[in-house]
């Protein structure tokens, strides 16, 4: 694609609703050249020769821009809306409301969309920063997160290529299932080289990667290799790649030597370690920029039994809307209004899915190619996400049960709505899936949100896990995990004097005692000092 053509398309992409004259377009596409010409026309001292030259130049620019504009008209990307004074042409995008145009030329892809009218029923909330679409520019034409089955790829090169291709189809994270097989079945230098290369790609493309290590599949004779790999991973201090250890408490005990060594590496690097409790939740967890993603456990079990062996992967999440609960209730105290607001979000997600469905073979070309002939199955477990921010967990002066009940009862209504929609679509001859999951939103996201009010859970020693305060705190967290069917994460700030043996025991207690499927230990605040247990507000 020629640079001028590219600039023209970007110009119309920014203004999909507007009509522009040739001169308007010229000014925007060749601003410097146009400015120089205009300066000559305004120059009182410009002689006839200079003026003629400027006129010629202006004519040339007009012809040049018209050449590209006419080409785009011929390609049905633009259309001439009218002819103005002196025959000047006006151009608009050749698109109807709600339609999208995908232009794919010489490795450059531009997607131009014209919002449909009436707009989504969350626009008003977006203007007030109460709701926001995650990655609004690619809200429809990309998935949020996918899971790849690493065991289906014959070698690291194949896996690397697949990840690379999928990057253009997702806007948050790719999960790599059974990543332990990648480490165990390849030479260490090869898997390390893969890790470095893929990390650099993640940085360039701004994507995250979750490598899920299932401890069940850990082979005793390969543990050294895994340890070496983890060392290298921790040395990288990658912000884009997360290792998630998928464990059962029994395995934690069986592999205690391995775990202690791993924990030591994480402590020394002051890196967070992520643990998923397989006893509690068998479906994988993926960690994105904006929060965790997971699959419905019952659906995952069916997938595992019937399809996993054939599958290259699964779509996990399609579109996401984030909600600032605190800001909503500052505007309105009406619970009924809150439920209606969430329903409006779900309706918007339904519209987004409808647009996505009709173009999915174009949008997700790489994924379609990768998963063929099991393309349909790739989407069978996917859900949309609503992520809650500042929803009052442990906010002082707020009844926790009340917040959780509100989320739970709203979720029930939304689930019923989704079932109705699936029934309606099926009756119309469109058997399709529409599911919405609730989850939390991580801090540090780019949305303009209210200041977060949350407790931090700090653990100083093993006994803290039995303290009344922590027990209460984790009790609420357990409830939240139940309400957030799209996943949640508990973050423990470990301070005080520590050693890997103690941490291993603490993990075991959490795995056995609490119904918390996914948690992380954050070692960033270790100072070596014996700090008292505190819970403090960020």
């Amino acid at each position, binding site marked *: 694609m020629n640079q001028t053509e590219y600039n023209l398309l970007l110009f119309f992409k920014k203004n999909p609703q507007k009509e522009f004259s040739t001169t308007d377009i010229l000014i925007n596409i060749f601003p410097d050249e146009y400015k120089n010409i205009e300066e000559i026309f305004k120059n009182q001292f410009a002689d006839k020769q200079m003026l003629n030259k400027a006129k010629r130049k202006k004519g040339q620019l007009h012809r040049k821009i018209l050449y590209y504009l006419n080409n785009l008209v011929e390609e049905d990307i633009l259309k001439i809306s009218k002819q103005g004074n002196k025959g000047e042409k006006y151009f608009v995008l050749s698109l109807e409301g709600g339609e999208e145009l995908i232009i794919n030329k010489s490795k450059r892809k531009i997607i131009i969309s014209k919002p449909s009218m009436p707009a989504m029923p969350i626009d008003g909330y977006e203007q007030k920063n109460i709701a926001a679409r995650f990655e609004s520019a690619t809200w429809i034409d990309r998935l949020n997160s996918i899971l790849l089955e690493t065991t289906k790829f014959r070698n690291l090169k194949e896996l690397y290529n697949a990840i690379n291709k999928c990057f253009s189809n997702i806007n948050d994270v790719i999960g790599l299932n059974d990543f332990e097989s990648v480490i165990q079945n390849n030479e260490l230098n090869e898997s390390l080289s893969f890790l470095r290369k893929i990390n650099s790609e993640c940085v360039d493309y701004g994507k995250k990667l979750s490598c899920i290590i299932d401890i069940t599949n850990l082979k005793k004779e390969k543990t050294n290799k895994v340890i070496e790999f983890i060392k290298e991973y921790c040395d990288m201090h990658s912000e884009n790649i997360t290792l998630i250890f998928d464990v059962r408490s029994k395995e934690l005990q069986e592999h205690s030597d391995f775990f202690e060594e791993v924990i030591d590496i994480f402590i020394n690097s002051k890196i967070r370690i992520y643990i998923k409790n397989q006893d509690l939740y068998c479906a994988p967890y993926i960690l994105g920029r904006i929060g965790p993603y997971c699959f419905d456990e019952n659906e995952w079990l069916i997938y595992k039994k019937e399809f996993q062996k054939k599958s290259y992967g699964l779509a996990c999440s399609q579109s996401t809307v984030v909600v600032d609960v605190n800001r909503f209730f500052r505007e309105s105290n009406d619970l009924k209004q809150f439920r209606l607001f969430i329903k409006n979000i779900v309706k918007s997600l339904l519209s987004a899915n409808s647009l996505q469905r009709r173009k999915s073979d174009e949008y997700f070309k790489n994924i379609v190619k990768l998963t063929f002939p099991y393309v349909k199955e790739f989407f069978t477990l996917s859900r949309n996400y609503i992520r809650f921010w500042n929803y009052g967990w442990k906010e002082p002066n707020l009844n926790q049960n009340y917040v959780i009940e509100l989320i739970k009862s709203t979720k029930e209504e939304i689930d019923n709505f989704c079932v*109705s929609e699936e029934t309606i679509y099926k009756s119309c*001859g469109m058997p399709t899936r529409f599911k919405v999951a609730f989850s939390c939103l991580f801090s540090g996201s780019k949305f303009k949100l209210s200041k977060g009010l949350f407790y931090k859970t700090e653990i100083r020693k093993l006994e803290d896990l039995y303290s009344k305060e922590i027990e209460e705190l984790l009790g609420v967290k357990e409830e939240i995990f139940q309400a957030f069917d799209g996943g949640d994460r508990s973050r423990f700030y470990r301070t005080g004097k520590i050693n890997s043996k103690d941490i291993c025991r603490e993990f075991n207690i959490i795995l056995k005692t609490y119904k918390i499927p996914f948690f992380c230990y954050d070692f960033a605040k270790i100072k070596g000092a014996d700090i008292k247990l505190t819970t403090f507000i960020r």
Partner: protein
Amino acid sequence: MDAWKSSLKYILESGKDFTDENNRICREVLNLVIEVKNPKNDITRAVEILNSFKKWVYPPLDEIADLILSRKLSPTYSYSYGPRLFNFHNAINQIDNFLIPLLKRNSFSRRGTVLIWNPIQDSNIYKRDVPGLISIDFKIRKQKLNATMVVRSNDLFFGWPANLYQLFVLQDYIGKKLGCKTGSLTTFSNSAHIFKDQFEDIQQVTSD
């Protein structure tokens, strides 16, 4: 529109109840035939009425139309009518390469039938989603193209308005290609049913 309301009323009053495989109470009339003589008059009216209920969102008309006209099978659908019509079993374009040439050659033909149901794919007792629409028949009589669809299982409240609209856009597509005026639309529903969960909404529609 009147046809829809009368049919709903008829099922409400004369249908027989049973519990289906999804544990939903269903009221059914077998082999119900509905003929819409002038579909152009109010083809979207039933969809508009369904849209006026705020508790659900009915599929947009362009997506309903897409389903029957689009040759591409979206990866997110279990099946779609368009690919079955325009590329049946990856073997035949039943509309452009059979039906239209057939009716062009012999406008009185009685062979203008296209199939949606594909026994190779659908006659499988373990398959979850199979098409409700079985076949569509086209007849040119009195210079008008009339269309009839056979639906094995037809939710008259939610499904029928979309099915009729799909039949309408397909009839329009073929009519234009044949240079022929469009006539009536008929649906033959082997099982025309409504669900108990919607009885109140249906009563609201029929009483308006």
